[in-house]
């Protein structure tokens, strides 16, 4: 999967848009994991048949929220999480230890490089919200790598998001600035940077890679003022918008002064009783073909 020779100095970098070693980012990701799982209606809301699933890999697991919850809910499944951040992995292992989850484990790994597991070693490979670091040109090879480590009949499951839908100007502007920065960084599928643009691509990646029985399920998570999700998303985004500022500044989409003003306005808007907003998530899954019977 390595494309280091194609574009030197790009694929080996940590392309995540936030400092992944930050303790606040770690706490934010744990919160976000819970918000997403609840907003989507569970760990596997598409009712996948897990009868034959005994080993799961979660790629770019962060501090391990999804892995830990999946391992807790399924004591007969070994769940492995990998992430590029050593600190995230150390922390995730500590959490597995305090919860006594012997079937959860974590390893450091860069998802932009070949996955360091043998062929056919997992029954299900999962990713969630990897848009924030995955490069468009890597996607097809990444999907091939996921299929390589899946057993025949195994499931590849990809979930990602589109954000920025709201009725408030500062909130929308903040999301727009990030989308533009992502575009300038070459990490967006949107031709003009108006959105992230990944969702329309997910099914295509699976079909191009030869997956069978491809399924798709969309989720709308509303966190308008007064909804149950509002408070959690407010805290999540208050941290995310601040932590994203260096990335937006780096790509010269806005000045720090502009970002500071916008940040204050965005927080005030989100606390307004008129605030309405949605995240759209899409889960796409497909099965690795079994060898043809002769």
């Amino acid at each position, binding site marked *: 999967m390595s494309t280091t020779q194609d574009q030197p100095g790009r694929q080996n970098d940590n392309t995540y848009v936030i400092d992944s070693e*930050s*303790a606040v980012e770690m706490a934010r990701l744990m919160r976000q994991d819970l918000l997403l799982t609840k907003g989507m209606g569970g760990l596997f809301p598409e009712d996948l048949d897990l009868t034959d699933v005994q080993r799961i890999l979660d790629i770019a697991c962060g501090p391990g929220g999804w892995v830990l919850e999946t391992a807790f809910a399924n004591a007969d499944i070994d769940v492995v999480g990998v992430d590029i951040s050593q600190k995230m992995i150390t922390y995730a292992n500590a959490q597995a230890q305090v919860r006594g989850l012997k079937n959860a484990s974590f390893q450091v790994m860069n998802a932009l490089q070949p996955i360091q597991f043998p062929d056919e070693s997992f029954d299900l490979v999962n990713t969630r919200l990897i848009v924030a670091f995955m490069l468009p040109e890597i996607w097809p090879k990444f999907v091939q790598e996921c299929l390589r480590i899946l057993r025949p009949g195994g499931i590849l499951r990809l979930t990602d998001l589109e954000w920025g839908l709201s009725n408030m100007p500062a909130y929308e502007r903040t999301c727009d600035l990030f989308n533009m920065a992502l575009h300038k960084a070459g990490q967006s599928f949107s031709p003009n940077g108006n959105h992230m643009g990944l969702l329309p691509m997910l099914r295509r990646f699976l079909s191009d890679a030869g997956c069978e029985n491809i399924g798709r399920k969309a989720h709308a998570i509303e966190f308008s003022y007064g909804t149950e999700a509002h408070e959690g998303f407010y805290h999540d985004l208050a941290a995310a918008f601040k932590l994203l500022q260096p990335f937006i500044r780096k790509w010269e989409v806005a000045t720090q002064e502009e970002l500071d003003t916008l940040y204050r306005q965005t927080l005030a808007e989100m606390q307004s009783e008129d605030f309405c907003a949605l995240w759209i998530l899409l889960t796409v899954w497909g099965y690795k073909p079994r060898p043809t019977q002769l």
Partner: protein
Amino acid sequence: MLLAISGDIVTGKLSTDASVLCLLHDVGFMEDKYTPQTWQELLGQIIEDPQVKQRIARETRVKTITLTRWVHNLAKPREDNMRQLLKAIPREHHLVFSRLAMIDFPNFSHDAGSSDPRQDEPPSEFYARVLSAYANTPQPLHTQGMYDLLFQQSIEQLDPDRQGMSISVVCCMHPLYGDKVRSLREIIGTGTPPWSHDLQHKTVFLGAESLAGAAVTKGRYVVAQSRKEPETYSLFFAHWSEHEQSAVAYPITCRARVIGCLLVSSTVPHYFTDRHLALIERYAHLMALAFDPRDFFAPEDIALRWMPHYTKQEPYVRHFNRRVTQKFADANAERRLITLNEAQERAWQDIEEELLQLPPYTELE
């Protein structure tokens, strides 16, 4: 006969098939029925009843097909799966099951289901992350970042089996008049079901009538192990909330001054063991790092009043954001600058003042 030799069974170190089978024969186990020779056979007998099989699968958090695979030796459980199995199977099978399990799991014992291998201390990595956040988090994210980290760590460790817990930070209200703290406010919290993950919208004012008030006033932890035994704790039962069956309040202090307490509630009566209390102490100490040391109060500056029952407070808290908006409008009209935090603090102080005018909580309520 079984009782007579059970002591030997408990203390004996049997590790071979032969010795276990010999033992089972000696105790005359189920003489009229086929005697299981492996734990798989015993489990197979137990789960012949589909309802029992479903229950055991649910309680051990495995699929029913997995139980079948274990029985037929098509898959092997881990030792922690075996501990969960021991908890889930009918009690009359515990002794035999554990002796048979020792064949495959030499360290397995009959009390494995009740032992808890988890740590008594927060792991060093947790301390490292909290200190890293304390040292490196920019000011606007500091307090919330510390809350997030500590809530997440503490609830993972205090409620690993998701039996139902809430953890809240309860803080002294800065006095609007005079210099004495008159009430506490539950400012933020987290929970596992049946509580929601974010508890900030559950803001409640607490006073001398509460467990939190007692802990802050006394400067030491207070525990209420069961809401069904109020006579034991007399005063501290004013604010039992829905789901809450036991609770602990531990003061958050810095340099012997107090800012509030960590309030931990469980759905399980008598949940809090000495191990839990020690952990709560550690997390209360760490939580002090979320605050500015200048915001802590000397004990003599805390004179809590009685507050109305939390159900009576809801109408006053409901339109909090409108009050904040009004504070901004007032400041604007007076050509004053006011920050969001200041506007919120003043709105809370107004609500406190209004609540203090209401009749305090009484047991009749």
